[in-house]
Each structure stands twice: as structure tokens, then as C-alpha cells.
């Protein structure tokens, strides 16, 4: 009597899709994320919490910008670069945007080649991603230096509302920190891929767990998130 039911559950259970599947997954009194591993679920939840942090920064920026009676400095002018005597608005920021998008592209392909167990290509693409990220941070350092020399401080600037400086340094600084941490972890994971840790089942240094190629995707999720945040910063801080 119970025999057929048992064999049914032993086979890979077919999960229904759509709303029914959603209700079934969440009400099943088991793990809710049927196909996502714990690693993927956890990185997504971490990214969700990071979303709230960046949202709060951008929200406070919106609040001070809307409520100040002093004119807000024009970002188009503030971040313009003069090349060969011609002033181009936001040039450096545009280049930084393209660099970060390119790094996301190489990262997405690295994840793909990781699952194909193509170690050389995966490593090369991850190193390319890290190089893009490092050049992004370098350009940001240049931008900070330029603005600090022009007199922008967290408590004031020569062009208008004092809050401009505090918003700029907080938001881009926090994002730059994320990029920097991402570059460091890209290098660590790239080394593991190159050494074949995920083939030989070598244990990691921190958790002493055996890694899988999924870690490349986890890394990728973090990296794409950093790119995603930049999309919002670019639109709301630099273009608005």
C-alpha cells in the first residue's frame, strides 16, 4: 500500500511551477528553496540586506537634496573633464560605467565556463574581471583626489549645498569598498579555480569545506550586485 508512494518520493520530485509551486514551496514545512542550494540562498539574502544599506544611503541623499534651500552643485559640471581644452561632462563617470559593465560581462562568462569545468578560461575571465574592477577603483581614487583638491569636503564645497560632499563621499566610498573587497575575493577564487581545488576536493582555508564550481557563481552574484548598485548611483547621483 505504501510502497508506490515511497518510490515516488525517492525519485527526483517534480516541483510544480507558477503560483501553485510558490505556495507549495513556502508551505511545505521543508526547505523553501527547492532548487537553489543553501549557498545561493544565503548570498541572495546577503545581497538583499546590502540592498537595504545602499537604499538607505540613496534615500538620505534624496532627503537632504530635496530639503536644502541652497542650490545643489551641478554634477554634470562638477564631474566634467577638460580634454584638449574641451569640457566634456561626466566623461570619467561614463568610462567607469562601461568598465564596470564589461567586468560584469566577463564575470557572467566566467560562471558559465566554471560549470563547464574549463579551468583556464574561467581563471582568465575572473582575472579580467578583477583587472576591470581594480581600474574602476583606480579611477575612483583619481576622482576623489580631483574633488578634494578642488575643495570638496564632507562638510562643504565651493559650489553649493554642503551635503553634496557628505553624500558623495559616503555613497561612492561605500561602493568603492565593495568593489575592492570583490577584487580581493575574485583573486582568491581565481587562484582556487586555477589550482583545481574544485576538482580535487581540496578543503578551503576558512570553512575547511570542499568547494564546488558553484562558488564561482556565488562570487558572480556578488560582483553583478556591485555593478547593479552602480547603475543606481550613476542614474540617481551623477545624472539626476
Amino acid at each position, binding site marked *: 500500500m505504501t510502497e508506490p508512494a515511497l518510490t515516488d518520493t525517492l525519485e527526483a520530485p517534480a*516541483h510544480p511551477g507558477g503560483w501553485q*509551486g*510558490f505556495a507549495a*514551496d513556502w508551505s511545505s514545512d521543508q526547505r*523553501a*528553496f*527547492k*532548487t*537553489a542550494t543553501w549557498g545561493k*540562498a544565503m548570498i*541572495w*539574502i546577503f*545581497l538583499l540586506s546590502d*540592498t*537595504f544599506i545602499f*537604499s538607505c544611503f540613496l*534615500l538620505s541623499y*534624496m*532627503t537632504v537634496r*530635496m*530639503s536644502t*534651500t*541652497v542650490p545643489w552643485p551641478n554634477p*554634470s559640471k562638477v564631474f566634467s573633464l577638460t580634454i584638449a581644452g574641451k569640457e566634456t561632462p*561626466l566623461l570619467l563617470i*561614463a568610462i567607469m*560605467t*562601461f568598465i564596470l*559593465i*564589461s567586468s*560584469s*560581462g566577463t564575470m*557572467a*562568462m566566467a*560562471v*558559465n565556463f566554471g*560549470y*563547464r569545468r574549463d579551468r583556464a578560461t574561467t581563471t582568465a575571465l575572473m582575472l579580467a574581471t578583477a583587472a576591470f574592477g581594480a581600474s574602476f577603483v583606480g579611477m575612483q581614487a583619481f576622482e576623489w583626489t580631483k574633488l578634494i*583638491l*578642488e*575643495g570638496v569636503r564632507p562638510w*562643504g564645497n*565651493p*559650489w*553649493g*549645498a*554642503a551635503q553634496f560632499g557628505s553624500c558623495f563621499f559616503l555613497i561612492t566610498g561605500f561602493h568603492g569598498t565593495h568593489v575592492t573587497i570583490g577584487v580581493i575575493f575574485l583573486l582568491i577564487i581565481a587562484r582556487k579555480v586555477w589550482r583545481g581545488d574544485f576538482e580535487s576536493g581540496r578543503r578551503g582555508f576558512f570553512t575547511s569545506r570542499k568547494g564546488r564550481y*558553484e562558488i564561482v*557563481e556565488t562570487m*558572480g*552574484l556578488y560582483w*553583478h*550586485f556591485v555593478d*547593479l548598485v552602480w*547603475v*543606481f548611483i*550613476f542614474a540617481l547621483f*551623477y*545624472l*539626476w
Partner: protein
Amino acid sequence: MAHLSSVSGKNVAHLSSVRRKNMAHEEGQQHPIKLYLVIWGWLFVLSTCSYLVDFFGIHGYLRWSLILLFMIVKAGLIVAIFMHMAWERLALMYAILVPPGAVLLFVAIMAFESDYTHVTRVLFFGTGEPSAQAATHEPQTSGSGTGIGTATTPPDQLMKEAKKHSLDVSKPEVASEGRNAARSGSASAPKESEKTAPASGNASGAATVHNDIAAAAKAPESKFYTLKPGDTLWKIAEAEYGPGHGGKYHLIFEANKALLSNPGKLSPGQVLRIPRLSG
């Protein structure tokens, strides 16, 4: 845009085929590399579009809606394809994508709140326009001297102004001559004498200031500048010290610290001392 929708249509067709394939594969996300390259290309196109909004100086509602449109499409492509959210089950999608919706409510609340704060600030502090500036000045009990058209500036008002900026003016003899305030007496240091000049210039009604305080040591002469609406310290520094020297605005700020609390907070009509560049 029509092109974009056709591409996304193709993607949807591709998604369903991949989802079917995914059931068979145990190992992670398997998609053709071409998909990533296409998305990469679209992200470039969209970023260029949003940059061009600024480059061509589009303003008003068109600017904001274009910026937001490009931002949302870019974010959607990154999350759906690069982060593989399109292939996850609804249970994960809703768990991650629904909570940020609360942020939108937060945005609405804070927009309402900052609008109210702005209105309150304009009502009580003014916008920095000359008429609003007069309202923010300390009310003068003497009854005369605050209006633009008043003929004399009472000596005690100048004293008050000097005291407000905590300046040491020992035994000053202040004589009022029409709208010109002349001051004589000895200030303890040349620096003090330079500070009192802009301060007395800011006592309303005084259009020009004759400063004949015998300073103990001769300091290099300074120019004075009356702020006009729209002035910034950077602009003044560029005008006074020459193009490319806007960064020296902080010298002007330092010289007028008694008046200015913040380099971004200037009121039209204030008289600033422009120090000479040494060397």
C-alpha cells in the same frame, strides 16, 4: 525600443527552452555564451543612452523619465540574466525581489517629509534672496537703520555688529556720514582691523566703508567684494585671482570666517574681504 522588445521576446523563448534543459542537468546554470554577449551589448547601448541624456542637456520631466527608464531596464537585465534570477523558482524570486518594494514606500514617505522640511526652511530662513535676507536679520530695537533707504547708521548698531563677531575694537569713534560709515580708533592687530571692515559693511545701510584705523603693522591691502545673487566663493576666486585659481576660494573663506559659517552659505549683499595672494 521595438528592437529591444523583439530581443526580449527571443530571450523569453530561450528561457523556456533552457528551463526544460535545466531539469535534466544537475549541474548549475548552462546557457550559451552568446546570450551573455547580447546582454553585455544591450547594457552598453543603454548606458550610452543614459549618458547622452546628460551630454545633450535634456532637462525636466523628459530627463528624469529617461534616466529612470534606462536605469530600470539595465537593472532588470543584470538581475534576470547575469544573476540568473530568470531561471530561479518563484519562491526565491519573491523572497528577494518583493522586500525591496518596501523601499519604494520609504521613498514616498521621505519625499513627503523633505518637501515639508523644504517649505518650512523657506518660510523661516528665506531662500538667500535679498528680501528674505532682511527678514532673517536680528530685529533692531532702535527702529532706524534696517531699511534700505535710511539715511544714518547709528553708531551703537556698528558696535553691536562688531560685538556680534567678537572683535576687539578698543575706543572706537564711530561717525556716521550719510550712508557711509567711517570708523577711526585703533584696533589691536591688523587682522582685527580687516575683520571689522567687512563686519561694519554688513551693518545694513552702509554702502561703502572708510577704514582709517591706524594698524600697528602695515598688512597688504585687501579688496572688498559685495556678493550678488548667484555668487559662489569658487566664482569669486576665479574672477579675482584669475582662471584656474578657483581652488583658492578657501583663502577668501578663511578671511571672512567671522561672517561665513560655511563656504556654501552666502547671502547677497554681504561684503567679503578678498585677501591678496602672498608671493
